[in-house]
Each structure stands twice: as structure tokens, then as C-alpha cells.
């Protein structure tokens, strides 16, 4: 939810600090305060998601802040994976479903 109205405690400040470091590291700026707030919320969501992945992953992977931490899952998919195709425009590495392939 919106950060507006929240008590200024250590947790939001820490999050904002991490977000500021992210912006510096990946050279991100946002056009207006509303967009900043939206990206901050997405960033917070992604950090929580990374923490969940970290807990669930059975390997040795580290999940956390990446260049894509201010993108929604859908935006990430559009740019780097399963683009939601519009009017027949194919996607990146388009989603492939066929089970008919045999060996060449």
C-alpha cells in the first residue's frame, strides 16, 4: 500500500535507504513523486519476494536487489521474457507450447 500515512519508523527509512542505493547503483530516476512512490512499492514487494525465494530455494542461490528490482513481474516478463502479446505480435523468446517436436 501507499507509504503515505505510515508512521516514520526505522523500517520505511531503511527501505528508502536501500532504494536510494539501488537508484544510485543502477542510475534510476523517476519523473514525479507518484512514480517514485509506485516504484518504491514495487521495490519493496520485490525485496519481500526475493526473501521468500531465498527461503524456498533448495540450492545455494542468493536472491535480492538486481537491476530489475523496480519492475513488476509483468514488466519484467514483457521486457525479458513472456511478453503479453498484443494483436499477434510475438514475444521475446516467445512462449512455446508445442509437444510435437521430435529429434532432428
Amino acid at each position, binding site marked *: 500500500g501507499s507509504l503515505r500515512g505510515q508512521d516514520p519508523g526505522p523500517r520505511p527509512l531503511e527501505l528508502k535507504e536501500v532504494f536510494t542505493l539501488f537508484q544510485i547503483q543502477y542510475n534510476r530516476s523517476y519523473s514525479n513523486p507518484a512514480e517514485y512512490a509506485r516504484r518504491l512499492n514495487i521495490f519493496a514487494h520485490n525485496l519481500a519476494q526475493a526473501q521468500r525465494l531465498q527461503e524456498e530455494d533448495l540450492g545455494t542461490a542468493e536472491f535480492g536487489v538486481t537491476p530489475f528490482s523496480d519492475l513488476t513481474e509483468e514488466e519484467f516478463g514483457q521486457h525479458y*521474457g513472456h511478453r503479453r502479446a498484443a494483436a499477434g505480435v*510475438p514475444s521475446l523468446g516467445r512462449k512455446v507450447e508445442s509437444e510435437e517436436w521430435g529429434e*532432428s
Partner: protein
Amino acid sequence: VPRTCDWRKAAGVISSIKNQANCNCCWAIATVGNIEALWGITWQPSVELSVQQLLDCDRCGNGCGGGFVWDAFITVLNNSGLASEKDYPFQGKGKPHKCLANKHKKVAWIQDFIMLKDNEQTIASYLATHGPITVTINVKLLQQYQSGVIRATPTTCDPRHVDHSVLLVGFGVEGRRAEAGSSRPRPRHSTPYWILKNSWGANWGEKGYFRLHRGSNACGITKYPLTARVQLPQNRRPVSCPP
């Protein structure tokens, strides 16, 4: 199948990490990486090849809008090879109606391309004895990935939904000892993994690479393993994958 294999350790096989930026061209970069590697293994010295040629000339004509690895291989066959990256450089945007393949000298070509069996042992064997292979995986977990071996489940990473093509360059086994500074607990058992070359720049992941668990079809890695075939020169011993 050897215990470990890493084509990055062989000189002139794996080219530099690319950055697709705002162009949806993982399929073209993976294909070019495959041909560069096989060409480097077969015919030293290596050469960097043109991704832009595939974006401009792909038979489906979508350029940065997306494509398939198999279409890219067919485009290479139809174009009688690939120009060099130097002659036909990457511009980050596709011009599907302005294919300039005929205006540039081809510096690498392929005889054929094949799809391997959807079996990780077969893929490892082929990788170790022939060279890097393109694979197409579910990209979902890579958004938050920083380092280490991803051991996904079908729930966290659906192996049926594959949407990102990358280059498989090796495999290995991670021992019990965790990396220094890691906040993760040590794995109780050794973890076999694949080494994959991504196309999101060298600042992403493990210097542009990432690792997936080997043996569990993590993120659908076995769904579409494709590779070109480059004719071996006569009187030349095949190169083996460095351990």
C-alpha cells in the same frame, strides 16, 4: 560425461557477455553465441558474429519483438552464414525489412542444426564433447537472482513455460563449502549445476552468468536444447571441454 566442464576456460570459445538492453533478442544472442563457440572450437581464431543480422533478416521478421532459436538457425542457413559483429554491429533495434546480409562478407557458417534429447545426461555429454548449446528456460526466477545455484521446483519455476533463450557453457558440482561471505547455509550435499551465459550485461548475476541445478529439469532447461553443427576440419583433433 566428465565431472566438470567449463568452456569459458578454453581460449577463444566464449565471447564477451552481451547486453540485449531494450531489445527482445535473447534468441539471437544465444544463437550467435552458440555458433561463435562452435566456430572457435573448430576453427581458431575465434570471431565475434553479428546479432544484428539475425534481427534484420530473421524469417519471421520481428527483430527486437522476439523470435525463436530455430528460426535464427534457419536464417543463418538461408543467409549462407553470418557476418562479423564488426562489419554488421548491434544497434539494439531490429530492421526486419532492411536485411543487409548480402552486403557483408560471411565469416562463419553452419552445416545444420539439431535438437538434443530432453535428457540432462545426454545434454551434458554433448556439451562436453561438442561445445556450448542453446537452451530456453522459464525466466521468472532470474528477476531476483544475484548468485549461486538455483534449485527450483515446478511450483517456483514452471518447466513447461519457457520464454528466455541462453547459452549453456558448462557444468560442475558445488561442494559442501559455501562461498566466503555468503549468508546462505552450507548445502548438506554437493549440488550439481549448469553454467549458463545470459545476455543482460556483465554486471548482472555472476559476471553475466548464472547457475541452475542440474538433474531436476530446473526451469525447463531440457525442453529445447538446440545447437548448430559446424563441420570439423580434416586432420584436426577435437578439442575437449576444460574441467
